[in-house]
């Protein structure tokens, strides 16, 4: 159950449109299913009132869309950003990917998003409808009737350890802060404890599921390259589908390395992976190492900060 | 403006004037001193040893009392100030020490240096402002005053941050504010002999003599200090000019001789 309700979001968006401050709003729109919410650019208040949704399935991070969206017109675009989204937004500003002046940011407090996989694990397949009520999700299934799930039990992993706050906004709905106290590096540490063989086996089984659909890359707010190296014939790394094990590894290592120090740990990669590969564990390994080796660093936290891989001290540890 | 006030034991006993005048002047200057409930002795000196916990607990308790009240802590006695300020610094900057102390006290409210610690003089300078003090002066002093800092109020400079430890000016500013003429002399930030007076009175006498002779040579008619031990050492070891607490000097200018108790 979200702390801020839909009407407040609509009010904030409508105000911007009415005043002429912005002429369109990037928000969540109902998809085919209740849990299948899609990003959409709303061009009128009517449209917003009709189709805009806000709830436990609005996980999508819009920061990346702003690169293309801001280029479309000279008018400002309004966007809803949850606390975790604001870090991606800032990171893109640091990288000059769009102009801050062309965006009105409505920061939205978030109580955590639901993970449809967790719901399916409990309720099974054939979900027709999901309703939120008093901290519970009523899942209407085709086979098992209504299954009631505590919203907390459906929370996505990334939300269980979210300590982010809205770091950039023009208007803030709610306090914009989250203070979960789970250790986000617990799983990484668990893997580190394993033997080399066990780690290898773990990643082999996970990464071999990869079908190279590129969803992780396409959703990643740090992967905004004009031309991705994996699509660029000049790069020698180009390939459309993973032919074998090596290429799966290569792809994921390189992708994690390219976003190292820029990844805000928004968790979108794991959310969209159709194969359920815990890709965030690669990014978190880099984040954990960066914090341990070069001091605490949160990508996107401050405008103008220098990413750890384009920085150094003369006293850095040796590889 | 309200402060939690830590007078310390000596001010309850041998240095009552120091305390009474501090309170009276505070009233006139419009700030309120709320005495810490049941304070314990600060211990007089800060032990620098890393494994000394017990001797610093009373200071932590005073700091926690202020934290709980949400007010800054103020002291007048240099020794108390030194112990409390150094303890506060260690709680803020030495996590091992802080963990051990917090673990020992273990009352569910860990302390990590949240309380702002002032010396009374710092309150006058940084919060009240000497110009405000000046407005309240009824009986301007007309005398040469040697400010005697000793060591505890100034050092270690990096922790105390009261003033430049080699050329402090805060008492001189007060003296000027009160209409007096501050006298600068070389020994104003050197030690009076301190606690060694207990075990080696002869040594303490040498140090004290060096201090008041230096002040006298520079033309001081009176010495002011913020430390009962400094005052004791100087007086006992033959200072033939009066040695007063700075609060007494303030009271003279703000309240007048007659009202002096």
């Amino acid at each position, binding site marked *: 159950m979200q702390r801020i309700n839909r009407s407040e979001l609509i009010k904030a968006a409508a105000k911007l449109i009415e005043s002429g401050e912005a002429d369109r709003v990037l928000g969540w729109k109902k998809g085919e299913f209740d849990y299948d919410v899609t990003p959409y650019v709303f061009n009128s208040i009517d449209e917003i009132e009709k189709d805009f949704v806000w709830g436990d399935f609005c996980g999508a991070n819009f920061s990346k869309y702003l690169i293309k969206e801001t280029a479309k017109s000279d008018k400002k675009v309004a966007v809803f950003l949850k606390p975790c989204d604001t870090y991606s937004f800032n990171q893109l500003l640091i990288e000059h990917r769009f102009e801050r002046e062309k965006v009105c940011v409505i920061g939205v407090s978030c109580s955590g998003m639901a993970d449809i996989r967790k719901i399916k694990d409990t309720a099974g397949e054939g979900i027709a409808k999901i309703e939120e009520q008093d901290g519970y999700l009523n899942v209407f299934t085709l086979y098992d009737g209504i299954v009631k799930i505590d919203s907390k039990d459906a929370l996505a992993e990334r939300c269980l350890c979210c300590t982010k706050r809205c770091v950039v906004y023009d208007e803030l709905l709610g306090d914009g802060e989250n203070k979960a106290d789970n250790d986000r590096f617990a799983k*990484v540490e668990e*893997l*580190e404890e394993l033997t*080399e*063989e*066990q*780690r*290898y*086996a*773990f*990643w*082999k089984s996970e990464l071999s599921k990869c079908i190279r659909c590129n969803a992780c890359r396409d959703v990643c707010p740090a992967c905004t390259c004009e031309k991705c190296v994996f699509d660029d014939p000049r790069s*020698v*790394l180009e390939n459309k589908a993973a*032919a*074998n*094990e*090596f*290429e799966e*590894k*290569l792809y994921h*290592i*390189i992708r*994690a*390395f390219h976003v*190292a120090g820029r990844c805000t740990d928004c968790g979108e990669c794991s959310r969209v992976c159709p194969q359920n590969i815990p890709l965030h564990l*690669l990014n978190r*390994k*880099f984040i954990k*190492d*960066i914090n341990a*080796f*070069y001091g605490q660093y949160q990508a996107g936290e401050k405008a103008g900060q220098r990413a*750890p*891989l*384009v*920085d*150094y*001290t*003369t006293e*850095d*540890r*040796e*590889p | 403006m309200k402060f939690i006030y830590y007078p310390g034991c000596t001010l309850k006993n041998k240095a009552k004037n120091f305390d009474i005048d501090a309170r009276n002047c505070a009233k006139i200057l419009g700030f309120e001193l709320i005495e810490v409930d049941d304070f314990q002795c600060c211990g007089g000196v800060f032990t620098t040893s890393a494994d000394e916990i017990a001797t610093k607990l009373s200071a932590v308790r005073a700091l926690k009392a202020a934290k709980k009240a949400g007010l800054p802590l103020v002291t007048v006695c240099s020794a108390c100030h030194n112990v409390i300020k150094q303890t506060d610094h260690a709680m803020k900057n030495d996590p091992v020490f802080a963990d051990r102390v917090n673990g020992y006290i273990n009352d569910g409210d860990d302390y990590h240096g949240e309380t702002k610690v002032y010396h009374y003089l710092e309150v006058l300078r940084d919060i009240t402002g000497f110009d405000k003090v000046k407005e309240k002066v009824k009986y301007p002093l007309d005398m040469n005053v040697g400010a005697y800092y000793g060591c505890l109020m100034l050092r270690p400079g990096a922790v105390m941050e009261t003033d430049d430890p080699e050329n402090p000016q805060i008492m001189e500013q007060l003296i000027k504010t009160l209409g007096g003429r501050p006298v600068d002399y070389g020994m104003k930030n050197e030690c009076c002999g301190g606690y060694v007076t207990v075990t080696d009175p002869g040594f303490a006498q040498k140090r004290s003599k060096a201090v008041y002779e230096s002040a006298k040579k520079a033309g001081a008619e009176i010495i002011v200090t913020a430390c009962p031990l400094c005052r004791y050492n100087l007086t006992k070891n033959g200072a033939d000019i009066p040695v007063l607490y700075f609060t007494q000097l303030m009271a003279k200018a703000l309240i007048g001789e007659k009202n002096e108790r």
Partner: protein
Amino acid sequence: MQIEEKKPLIAAFCCNWCSYAGADLAGNNRLNYPDNVKIIRVPCSCRVDPTFILRAFQRGADGVLICGCHPGDCHYTTGNYYTRRRMTLLFSMLEYLGIEKERTRVEWVSAAEGAKFAQTVNEFTAAVSALGENRRLEDLRCKE
């Protein structure tokens, strides 16, 4: 024909200004080291892209060595500082994926350290040989 056991293959990236010259000095002083190591010259260790290392492993290298000027002595003043961070993170990641950490190494070798270069190659070759062939990060298609 006798089937020979495959000798471990090691690719070494050496910066032009210090380490490549250090390797030359090892030659000038006739210091022997195993022939498993093949050197690729780069202007600075900071030219070494992580993909070069992965590519080498893909193609069957059993170990990859990166040599650069000592930190603080970089010909380009700061290049090896970036190398140091990049490789620290990359190697940590490879270890996390279960790739033996003995297969990767960064060593700072100055132009005067011919002996250090030879010693590094000796040690590294021995360490890699002890692990045997690289099977965890190779591309089977490259084996024909």
